[in-house]
């Protein structure tokens, strides 16, 4: 028998995410400096032993801010995926399981949402709701719903005609129980990989929306916001852009590798 190839995507992705998770968890309890404290003397100071990542244009410690900012970005991504994914799974489960006109209506609505570029759609929602962390979460969640709904729906469509569903029904299980106790665990692998991809998208979109100034509002640290603020000093103080950028890249890379790895695991 052929030896199974190691799933490097999964291992590396999981490693990266765990590393970032440790980084931001430490940031929740301990940062070298107060991330919002300004120090006029250390304005745009380069990386040194006292400020490992250097300082920004207000003399705030970049390491502390990247730690906090990663936390914010991660929080937004997590809640977005939980909210959007949860709703999407629910919609997908219902439409896939019951079919009929409910399916038609919800899926056409889905198509309508999908037909807009996601960033544009999120911008429209933000302009309706107003900027802010929680509104960004809401807007991004709405953008994420269709992809989750589709994946879940297709899984449920495939599973609902299986005999084990029939036997669960004739044991007297209710529709809800069949949907979430019997079918859902079977759909979990594809939903999980979708969640990893969703995380990836949410991180990038949160960063880009904060970059555009409609996401997380100052003085809260956010990776996207830091990138946009550092633009002016890109040549004189590149560390202001490099470190938050690296954090975004590592988060996105980690999630996307994890997603790929999960797809491979699921498809085995």
């Amino acid at each position, binding site marked *: 028998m052929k030896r199974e190839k190691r799933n490097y995507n999964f291992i590396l992705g999981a490693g990266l995410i765990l590393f970032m998770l440790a980084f931001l968890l430490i940031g929740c309890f301990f940062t070298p400096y107060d991330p919002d404290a300004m120090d006029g003397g250390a304005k745009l100071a380069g990386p040194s032993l006292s400020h490992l990542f250097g300082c920004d244009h207000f003399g705030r410690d970049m390491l502390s801010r990247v730690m906090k900012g990663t936390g914010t970005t991660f929080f937004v991504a997590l809640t977005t995926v939980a909210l959007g994914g949860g709703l999407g799974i629910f919609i997908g489960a219902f439409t896939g399981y019951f079919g009929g006109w409910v399916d038609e209506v919800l899926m056409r609505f889905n198509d309508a949402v999908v037909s807009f570029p996601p960033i544009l759609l999120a911008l429209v929602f933000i302009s309706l709701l107003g900027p802010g962390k929680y509104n960004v979460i809401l807007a991004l969640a709405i953008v994420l719903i269709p992809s989750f709904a589709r994946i879940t729906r297709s899984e449920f469509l495939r599973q609902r005609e299986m*005999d084990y569903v029939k*036997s669960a029904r*004739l*044991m007297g*299980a209710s529709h809800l*129980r069949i949907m979430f106790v019997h079918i859902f665990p079977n759909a979990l692998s594809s939903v999980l990989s979708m969640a990893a991809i969703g995380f990836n998208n949410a991180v990038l979109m949160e960063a880009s929306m904060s970059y555009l100034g409609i996401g997380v509002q100052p003085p809260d640290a956010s990776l996207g916001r830091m990138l946009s603020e550092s633009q002016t000093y890109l040549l004189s103080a590149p560390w202001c852009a490099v470190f938050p950028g690296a954090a975004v890249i590592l988060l996105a890379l980690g999630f996307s590798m994890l997603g790929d790895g999960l797809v491979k695991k699921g498809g085995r």
Partner: protein
Amino acid sequence: MKLLEVKDLNIEFYDVNPPQKVVKGVSFSMEKGEVLGIVGESGSGKTQTALSILRLLKSGSQISSGQIFFKGRDLAGYTREELQRVRGRKIAMIFQEPMTSLNPVLTVGSQIEEGLLLHTQLSPEERKKRALLAMEEAGLGEVKKLYGKYPHQLSGGMRQRVMIAAALVTEPELLIADEPTTALDVTVQAQILELLKEINKKHGMGILFISHDLAVIRRLCSRVLVMNEGRVEEEGEIHKVFEQPEKEYTKKLLAAIPHRRESLRKRRRG
């Protein structure tokens, strides 16, 4: 009182154009503890008849007319809650494909317990005890070990036994078996048939046994219903139907069973 009585049952597929009748005026009845066989070729409507008893027809097909009485009460008059209580508790069903009729991501034990979980207020320990008992009764060995295993770790015959255990655990009065032995090899098939016979004797459970295999029907059933193109061709005691068939179709069907001697003779001649 009859255990099951089906009167003038008609089923049609209405999602094809024109709508197609697959079961046309089928009537039969079953006594308590009886083993009734339904035999017929593929597409003769036997599975649809069985599914309609539990109102499990696929979307796109429906009972267009007729009545089904379970213990004297019309199943059509049951509310959804009542129907859910009847399913699994009073009537259980096992399917042809033991590979797909078990949920791949749930353990054997939890799937056997499902019926108890849904229909009784037993404690988890009591449920486990009953599940293990049902597994033993279904002829499974090392039940404690099997309890925590997943379906893909079992062979086809074992899976079918698990299905039987899951059907037995709530002690239903009617077991509908839709070609339960078709996907199994001959020795396992014989074992499963013996098992069903035993269960029927021990619990007085009525079995509605559906098969296209006349030999299997003959081994198990006391009465048989021959179906063809959605109609009942012939009905009667097993020996009478097999030895003195009245209808042309039944004769043809019986003639289609290969006989060992005949084929030997032919081979010698050739």
